[in-house]
């Protein structure tokens, strides 16, 4: 009397059961984080006793309650957060033993790879399914962090999924899901990028972001000017404001100075300056500027913005 899609359904049901197993495997390393009103968010056991989640979902600052994969409650404290990448690292208090999430094979990831977003927005694990729709290179978040690669996802990052893992069909973690970083567009930060932030947060509680305290505006250079000073390229960055007590002020940068190079790199867009600074963590950087028609070189030691936040 009743019918099903007959014996030929094997490939489909095999895929289905593999996906369900992937969710189950990943779920063993996903916790619920109760640090905001309404829906809890998800976090991944990144390594022994360390949970990674999305910073915007953790509203409280003190001790945070979490629900472990086995349903037990535990407390955790914040080891550090980085608003620029919207990541937060928590340390689980006491000696709850939860195994760290297995890693997926990131090298096999391409546009079109089947992926699952897994979350624990409460007691149980839930999932959504789709493909990697784009791999973005050299993306900068609106808070100024540079991320080498970011994954855009053709799947739904539901309420409570931010901070949870994006896993492959084997349940291995590829990235951390986030619905807030690109203002509503579902995307994921690759595990390697997360690793770097986690290292820094565990080590010093913040991520170092060198800054010199200037606002700049790209301006075009005339051909004659470029030729006269033997400047390659046809644009520079005009200093339009300088922060009080900033490295730039102390170093003698003046309003109206035209920035041409930083650390030997040509500057034509504001991002170029951020990139040049990021490559000089804690060391002095030499700035080549054009002031009143005269080329000058000024050396400035960037300060750490993360520390001030």
């Amino acid at each position, binding site marked *: 009397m009743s*019918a099903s899609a007959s014996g030929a359904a094997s*490939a489909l*049901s095999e*895929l289905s*059961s593999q*996906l369900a197993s992937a*969710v*189950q495997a990943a779920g063993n390393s996903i916790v619920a984080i109760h640090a905001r009103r309404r829906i809890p968010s998800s976090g991944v056991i990144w390594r022994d006793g360390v949970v990674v989640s999305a910073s915007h979902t953790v509203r409280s600052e003190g001790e945070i309650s979490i629900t472990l994969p086995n349903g037990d409650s535990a407390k955790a404290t914040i080891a550090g957060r980085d608003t620029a990448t919207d990541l937060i690292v928590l340390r689980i208090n006491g000696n709850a033993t939860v195994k760290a999430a297995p890693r997926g094979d990131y090298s096999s990831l391409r546009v079109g790879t089947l992926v699952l977003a897994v979350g624990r927005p409460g007691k149980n694990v839930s999932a959504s399914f789709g493909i990697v729709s784009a791999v973005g290179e050299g993306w900068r978040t609106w808070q100024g962090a540079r991320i080498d690669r970011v994954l855009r996802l053709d799947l739904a990052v539901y309420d409570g999924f931010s901070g949870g893992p994006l896993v*492959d*069909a084997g349940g291995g973690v590829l990235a951390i899901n986030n619905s807030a970083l690109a203002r509503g567009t579902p995307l994921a930060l690759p595990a390697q990028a997360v690793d770097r932030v986690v290292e820094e947060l565990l080590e010093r509680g913040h991520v170092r972001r060198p800054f010199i305290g200037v606002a700049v505006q790209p301006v075009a250079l005339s051909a004659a000017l470029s030729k006269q000073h033997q400047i390659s390229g046809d644009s520079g960055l005009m200093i339009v404001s300088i922060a009080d007590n900033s490295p730039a002020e102390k170093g003698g940068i003046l309003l109206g100075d035209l920035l041409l190079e930083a650390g030997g790199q040509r500057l034509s867009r504001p991002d170029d300056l951020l990139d040049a600074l990021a490559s000089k963590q804690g060391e002095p950087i030499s700035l080549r500027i054009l002031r009143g028609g005269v080329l000058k070189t000024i050396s400035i030691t960037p300060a750490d913005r993360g520390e001030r936040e």
Partner: protein
Amino acid sequence: MNSAIFGSARAASSNLNGLAELLREAVVEVRSGELGSGTGIIWGGAGLIVTNAHCVRRGSSLEVDANGKWREARALAYHPQHDLALIAAPSVTGPMLEVRDPESLRAGELVFAHGHPLGVRDALAMGVIHTVARDRSKSPRWVVADVRLAPGNSGGPLVDAEGRLVGINSMVVNGLGVAIPSTLVQQFVERALAQRAA
């Protein structure tokens, strides 16, 4: 892991065609008064059809379309709390979907929703089980799936990868498809028929 899946993608896809074929034969379109249309699932050989209660207006005319022919139907029983209705259209026949207890569903399992969203006939949508929501007695109350539904999917089947019925699509909450567990549907039909027999 992924490469193994890509290897079987073609096979899975041809399975999908078979699945879509089965579902096309096992569902009808339901139209009642001014309500627009919904989807109905053929339930047994006697022209019984199950759909959502909200697709069948009491006291209004009721028609079902199977294989391009509209036929008159009548409502036999309602369960407003579970949003279910049992209707009879004696000349309508088709295969009955095997029922799977949603108790055994796991998050991440593939599911398929068949129906007539926005009046488009026989549209198939794929997704995965998001979670199975339970009532106080811990038995399944809603099957929640990451699958795209639209008006017109109401009353249609949510099936697993083998084409077994796990629920009847009823509503969309926060973008997630919400279905009434197949076991509740089965109970409803059995009780409704027992009452009529008594």
